[in-house]
Every structure is written in C-alpha cells, then in structure tokens.
C-alpha cells in the first residue's frame, strides 16, 4: 500500500513543530510496510487532490499567514472545498483551523475572510490561551494531550468537537470544547497533536487507507510504550 501526505505551505506555516505530525504519520505508516510520499504544496502550486490521501494544514506567524491567505483564495480554494466534501482526510491546526472558517479577527483587529468551508468563525481575544491541554473524545473513548497557544476564540456552531476539555481552555474558553470534526476534516488548536496521541495518528491513517483502497483496513499494533508513557506523565501532572 501507499499513502500520499501533502503538507500545505510547509515553508510558511511551520511554527510549533507542525512538521512533527507529518513525521509521526510517516513513521507509523512505514512501520506497517506502507510506502509514504510527502508532497509539499506552497505558493502558486495547484492542489492535485486526486493524488492526496492526507492533507495537513498548519499554523504560521502573522507575516507568513498574510502571504498564505491570498494564495489560498486564488489557487487552492475550489480544490480544497472539493477535497473536504469528498470526505478525504484533512488535519488543520491553529491558523489552518481558523482559515477554514468564515472569518477570523487578526490580533490587530482586522477581520480577515476565511475559506468558509466550515460554518465556524473566530473572534480576537484580549488574552492568549496558553498551556497544556487534555481533552476527552466520547465517541472514540480516547483522551488526547497537547498544548494550546491562541488568542482567537473559535465558535463552531454545533459541529462535533475533537474533544471535551478536561484541562485547558479549548476553542473559546466558554463552551469547554476543543477543536471540531466535519466529515473527515479534523480541526484543533493542539500543537504536538500526534506525539502523545498515537491512537489519533492511527485513526487518520486508517481512514485515509480505507478511503483510498475502498475496503476496511485495520492496522497491526506497534510498540507505543514511550508515547503512552509521555501522555500518562502529563495527565498525572495536570490532574494534581
């Protein structure tokens, strides 16, 4: 089997170790004998959505994000919408998450149009939500640990969350939800999304492979002792 993972604007949206999520997906797929190709798609590149199985959309600094938002609208918007509606796997973090919504308010107060694929919006806040986060996903019965750092407050209009906050602020500090899920688009504010959540990484791989090969795929287990220990240490520490 083979998987094509596409990193959107890897040269512009690359803060907070976003690249790590791709390295982890690649590692876990290759451990199961699946060949992985990484495709970089940046300014002026068309999105070849038929040849993408997992699309990764990270966050950037304001200067870089301003370069992204104009390119996104001119060269990638239509394909990206098609990709999402076709139930393919998209992982959007922080800035990427905000850009999928109707609009977001930049730190300088400017209201910036998003792609409007999701019925969500993000308002600016006076304080930043910074810190370690624990969330629980009821449907999957899984607990995820990560780190959030955002001033935007995102309102998701009843979309399924990635999880309920056990610790930390989440989308907006009010409704106690973190991230959102639409079809196979997973949005979150988590940095280091997959480093301590190998079960979520495998979920993405499984959906992408099942989509691609049109059959139920189940992945064999691999040794995740260190990953789960890293998660356990944080849960213990934050629960004190």
């Amino acid at each position, binding site marked *: 089997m083979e998987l094509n993972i596409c990193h959107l604007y*890897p*040269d*512009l949206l*690359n*803060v*907070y*170790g*976003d*690249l*790590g*999520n791709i*390295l*982890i997906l690649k*590692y876990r797929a290759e451990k199961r004998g699946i060949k992985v190709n990484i495709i*970089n798609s940046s300014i002026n590149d068309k999105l070849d959505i038929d040849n993408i199985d997992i699309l990764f959309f990270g966050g950037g*600094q*304001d*200067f*870089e994000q*301003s*370069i992204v938002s104009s390119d996104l609208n001119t060269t990638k918007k239509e394909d990206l919408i098609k990709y999402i509606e076709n139930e393919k796997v998209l992982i959007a973090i922080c800035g990427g998450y905000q850009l999928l919504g109707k609009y977001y308010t930049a730190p300088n107060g400017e209201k910036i149009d998003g792609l409007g694929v999701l019925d969500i919006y993000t308002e600016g806040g006076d304080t930043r939500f*910074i*810190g*370690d986060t624990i969330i629980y996903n009821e449907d999957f019965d899984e607990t995820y640990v990560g*780190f959030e*750092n955002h001033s935007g407050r995102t309102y998701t209009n009843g979309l399924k969350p990635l999880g309920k906050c056990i610790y930390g602020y989440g989308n907006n500090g009010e409704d106690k939800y973190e991230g959102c899920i639409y079809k196979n688009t997973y949005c979150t504010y988590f*940095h*280091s999304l997959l*480093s*301590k959540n190998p079960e979520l990484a495998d979920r993405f791989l499984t959906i992408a492979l099942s989509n691609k090969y049109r059959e139920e795929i189940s992945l064999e287990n691999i040794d995740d002792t*260190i*990953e789960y*220990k*890293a998660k356990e*240490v944080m849960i213990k520490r934050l629960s004190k």
Partner: protein
Amino acid sequence: MVKKINIKALISILASKITIFLTKTLLKGGTTFPGKVALKIDKNILSKVSKGYKIILVTGTNGKTTTTNMIYNIIKTSGKKVITNNTGANLFPGIVTTFIDNYKFFSKKKDYYAVIEVDEANVKYITACLSPEIITVTNLFRDQLDRYGEVYTTLSKILEGIELSPDTTLVLNGDESLLGKLDVKNNTVYYGFNTKINENNIIDINADAKFCKFCKTPYKYNHITYNHLGDFYCPNCGFKRADLKYAINKIYDLSPDSSSVRLNDLDVTISQSGTYNIYNALCAYSIAKELNINDEYIKKSLENQSSSFGRQETINIENKEVRIILVKNPAGYNQALDTLCLNKASFDAAFLLNDNYADGTDISWIWDVDFEKLKNLNMDAILISGIRAYDMAVRLKIAGLKTDNFIIEETFEKLTERLKTSPNNKIYVLATYTAMINYRKYLHSQGYIKNLW
C-alpha cells in the same frame, strides 16, 4: 572627592549592595533581587551608577552570553578596566545589580567599559536610562513562542530600544536578513561571511524568515551558513545583504574542538567549535575593532577563550569528558547537533528537556529540530532526562535513533551514575535552560564543578 549623588540614590545603592552581599553569601547566587531592591528605592538608579562607563549592549536570540564573554575577555586582555553581567542575568534588574555591585563611591571612571548582555525585550529599559557606545544584535531566530510570539515581534522590541539611543553605533549581523536596511538614524556597520562554509545555497523548508521583509518574495542565497543566515538577496525588489565591514574571509579547519578562520586579515583559531561560535567571535572582533583594540589582543583572547557556563563547558566526571551544551530553540539545537556530527570517533549523548517558563512551556519546538541527522552517528548510549524526558524520547524514536540504546532517567543522581558507566569517554549533554542550570547545581553539590556562577 565624593561624587555628587543625592540621598535617595545613596540609600538605593547601599540597600542593594547589602542585598548583594546577603544573596551572595547566603543564597550563593541570585542576581536579580538586589537590583529590584535598588529600583524600588530609586527608579532612576541605573543612569547614576552607570555614569563614566562606555557601554556595549549585546542582544539577539542566540549567542548573547558567549559573545558578551568574548568581548569582555578581549577588552580585559587589552589592559582596560571592564565589567560584565556574564552569568546570564540579562533582565533590567539583573543589569542594575551588575552596576551596583561594581559601584565605588570614591572613584573616578576613565576609560572604563561595561559589556552587558540584555534580553531582547529589555533593551528599551536600558536605553531609556543610558546611551550605549555600541549595541550589537547577533541574530533573530524563532524562540520561545509562548512568550514573545514571532521573530518580527522580537525585532520590533529591539528596535524600540534602539530608537531611544540614536547616537549609538550599531554592529549588526549582515547575514541576518531581518537586520538589513533598518529604519534607524544610527551609524550602522555589518559583519558576516564572505566565504562559504558549506556548499549549501538552498534554504531549508523549515528555516525562519525566508521571505523578503519588504516585498514577501522568497530570498535567494549566494551561500547559506546555517538556518536563514547567509549572503541573501531578493530577486524581486533588489533588497540584499549590506556591504560587510568585518568578514570571515577564509576557513582553514573546522573540528569538534575549534575553528580556524581568517577575520578580515587576521588568522585566528577560535577555541570554541561550531559555526555559531564563528559568528560570536566575528561579532566580538567587529566590536573590538570599533573600539580600536589591537589585533594581537583579539587573537590572544579568542584563542584562549574558555567556555562559559553551560556553553560547551567541559566537566570531568570520574574521567568521563562531559560536555554541556545549552539548547533553547531549533536554530541553536541544530547548531549543537552539527557540532556532534563533527565527531569521527564514537561518543554518547544525553538529552535533557524541561518545560519551565525559562525553557518555554511549549515543547513542540523539538519537532523543528533536525534530530534525523543523528541517525548515522556512532552513539552507543542515548540518555534521556528532564521533566519532559518521554516527549524527548518520542522525538528521538521518530528520528530513527535506536530505542534499544535509550536510557530514560528521571533523577540527576541516576543520570550521573549512567554517565559514569557510559560506554564512551566523551559524552555530550544537551540541556534546555533550567535543565542546564539545575544539573550544574547538582554537579556542583557533588563537587564536579568548582564555580557555580
């Protein structure tokens, strides 16, 4: 004759000096508190106690401490009087402490120098009180985004400080595109590499500041030294590296222990290895030249520069050569790993990751460090420790290092036992800020380090 000084300042200095004495003797360290005491009594105290000094401010994200130390040593070697805050107490109160500690009521200062390391966001508090002779900015890398945000935010904080001091000469890293063509009134000189140090002229996809700060077009490079530093130009608007007044003109040899280079027309073997230390030495050289110090003092000083405080500091632990390298952001960590890669013989390494405020509370940045380059090195033991040891272990595992060689130890005591019985005699310890500070304290308590500060 007693200098003219008012009662408030006098009390402020005395109170602070007493506090310095107490913290030094009782707490064995503690460098910011006395300054806070002084400022509480007289908030203008810095302008008074710094009178008579020619001041050199060193700021930038990486290399401040080593560069400060190098400049200090050169000035000292040249026979001039000089003070410094070389223990890394680089916030406003810590700097006040340094001046008060060196304050003498009955002396007149002539040709006295102060080489002061200052945190990027604190430059403006210093320049509000005094006008430095020189301000130097080493570089701007992505650093602890949970505190300052972006490289552009860091730059604007430094610029706020520079604006308050238009008569100061700026000595800037010309290879740092973010520092090119600044909108300031100051006399500005640049240093950089006129010769390439590797064959690379394609910027890494994950480097910082890759897009022209004026027109947002990707820069092109004649050569890259590391991360985004190098001889850059914008193919669209024509913005390019400034003319260099001071430059590396030749590279003779790069080893794990030193670098032999030509600074303008002076051949020097810098006693600390790594490309980043060539930059630090070049910066120190540039400042020394601006201060009209003779080449012989510069050469002698850079060739005998001993490492400072956890910056490639070598410690002997029961005949093991333990080398501590502070790592605090992706650019610095990658440079440290490049130094490891210079080793041809086998060695062991310890990776200490903490997530206290001074380390950055978000440890995601380790995913921007290219640990993959360690995959093919001869490392027999991979020791892992620190508050976030398991996160570090995940990172190293994904990088392709052999998990069979992983030894995860939560306490310094056990870690040190492991070091003593490690397969190789040379062991690198790469530690984030508080991990480095705390481990040094532990080694001090065990008698392996003589001077804690």
